[in-house]
């Protein structure tokens, strides 16, 4: 597998990931997404307290190739944002599951999280995308 896909994360078909931490979830972009976008030059973060809705735009990611929405994987209220990305958006490229996290939300509905893809399912999905 060309892309790094890690355990303990939930993935979406739009290539976001969510990691559960107690009653919150950390949100970011997958390694596949950062590779397809190319070098990221700007990130527009949501505001703390903002309500995000599953499948709706919640942050904006700009690379040299394109400007794209980061869709919220699940519903929630933003409790923290990764302000490091303002000066170092490239962290999403170099460490998408670590320093490149984008924001953290308070989970509204646990069920939404487990309805997303786990590592195995997402791996299959990415292989399918590559073969298209």
């Amino acid at each position, binding site marked *: 597998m060309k892309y790094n896909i890690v355990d303990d994360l939930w993935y979406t078909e739009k290539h976001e990931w969510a990691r559960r931490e107690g009653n919150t979830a950390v949100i970011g972009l997958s390694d596949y997404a950062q590779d*397809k976008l190319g*070098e990221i*030059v*700007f990130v527009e973060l949501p505001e703390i307290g903002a309500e995000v809705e599953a499948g709706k735009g919640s942050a904006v990611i*700009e690379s*040299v*190739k*394109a*400007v*794209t929405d980061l869709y919220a994987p699940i519903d929630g209220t933003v409790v923290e944002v990764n302000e490091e990305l303002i000066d170092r*958006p*490239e962290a999403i490229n170099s460490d998408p599951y670590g320093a490149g996290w984008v924001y953290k939300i308070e989970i509204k509905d646990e069920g939404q999280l487990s309805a997303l893809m786990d590592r195995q399912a997402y791996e299959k999905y990415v292989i399918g995308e590559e073969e298209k």
Partner: protein
Amino acid sequence: MRKSKALLFEMSHAGRQGYSLPSCDVPEKPVDELLPRKLQRCEPLDLPELSEGEIIRHYTGLSTRNFGVDTGFYPLGSCTMKYNPKINEEAAVLPGFAYLHPCQPEETTQGALELLYNMEQDLIELTGMDRFTLQPAAGAHGELTGLMVIQAYHRQRGDYKRNKVLIPLSAHGTNPATVSMTGCEVIQVPGDERGLVDLKALKAVIDGTISALMLTNPSTLGLFEEEIEAIAKAVHEAGGLLYYDGANMNANMGYTRPGDMGFDVVHLNIHKTLSTPHGGGGPGGGPVGVKECLIPFLPVPLIDKKGEGFCFNYDLPESIGKVHSFYGNFGVIIKAYTYMRMMGAEGLKQASTDAVLNANYLMNLLKKTYHLPYDRTCKHEFVLSARREKKKGAGAGDIAKALLDRGFHPPTVYFPLIVEEALMIEPTETETKETLDAFAGAMEDIAKEINEDAEKVIHGPYHTVVGRLDEVRAARNPILRWNKEQQL
């Protein structure tokens, strides 16, 4: 000299002078009498000091680095880099037009009003709409005007719940931006495996809160939305209106009209379809046409026929107001009108015919080498994918750079987003078979080079004034202005 990248500031020599000012022809006064001290600059202006010859060579050198349709093939898909006939320029500088003042009384500007009136009549015929405003300054401005007209229409009917606008995934980026500007919400409509609007998915998201559907036909994939009548019916039945993004109208002239397809509002990009100059920040033109029911909401003034003459009509109480000072960019409208009159109805149809023929010819040449994701007869443009090349190490952006080395302007890359590693090619109607063959040859040559030595391709271009630029650094840390301290 031509390769020199030095800035005027860097070429400066203290005391060198390239100007001689005439002696002052009014009595001189001390600056202090004319301007209070606090408004005066204390330090001398740090202007570069050069000889006249140096300045002339500097700017002449820069001008030779321009690349335009007048110097080479420019297949920038979706942007329509169409040839600008020189007669357009001659018409626009005719003294009777060029020396007019917009505040002149109506009776002294009858010729200009007649031209604007005739232009509107021609656009009505070309598009099948009922009236036009010529005010908007460009396509995106036209979109905003059109959506404001649509919103005004709904509100006038007491229908305040319509705050959603449907946009297909293949749309130009300006469409969602326009929707945001009007305070509405964008609802994306997915495409099907043919690359067309998925009618079923569209029907699933239509409800009583839909204000409009914005559609480009043919789409940014260069494909004609064949089910447009069913699409229009579905939107209209739910009380929504149809907005036609006229970006690709140059594929349809004389064949089909947005008005006949069921659209209620249309904007035209006259720098595309009607051959006025493109880019450089304008001035541009984005006329907006509407069906009968929307006329009351158009910007004022409209230009009406009155007896033998023409007059401004400000009597539209429900108008959204003015969207441009005076009557739009008049000079650009003269150019578009000149083009339409020079071509005539048959000529405009021929332009669309040739644009479509050229695109299909080139597409069929290039699909032998590159992946064509939507392999069907196209209109004026088509989209290849460089995903196979990307896997070998060089993608769409690298192919673009390699084309520069071969004397061609690259196509649009990485758009539309629905095609991975997109190369969006629009040859336009004016190109000859020889030019298209040469371009296809260059593209084949690049594909071969990627097979043999992708590493070489990703470091190009090699023969341009500047080589591979660091686009990432430019975006992350832009230096927008020369600064003496930075140089030291």
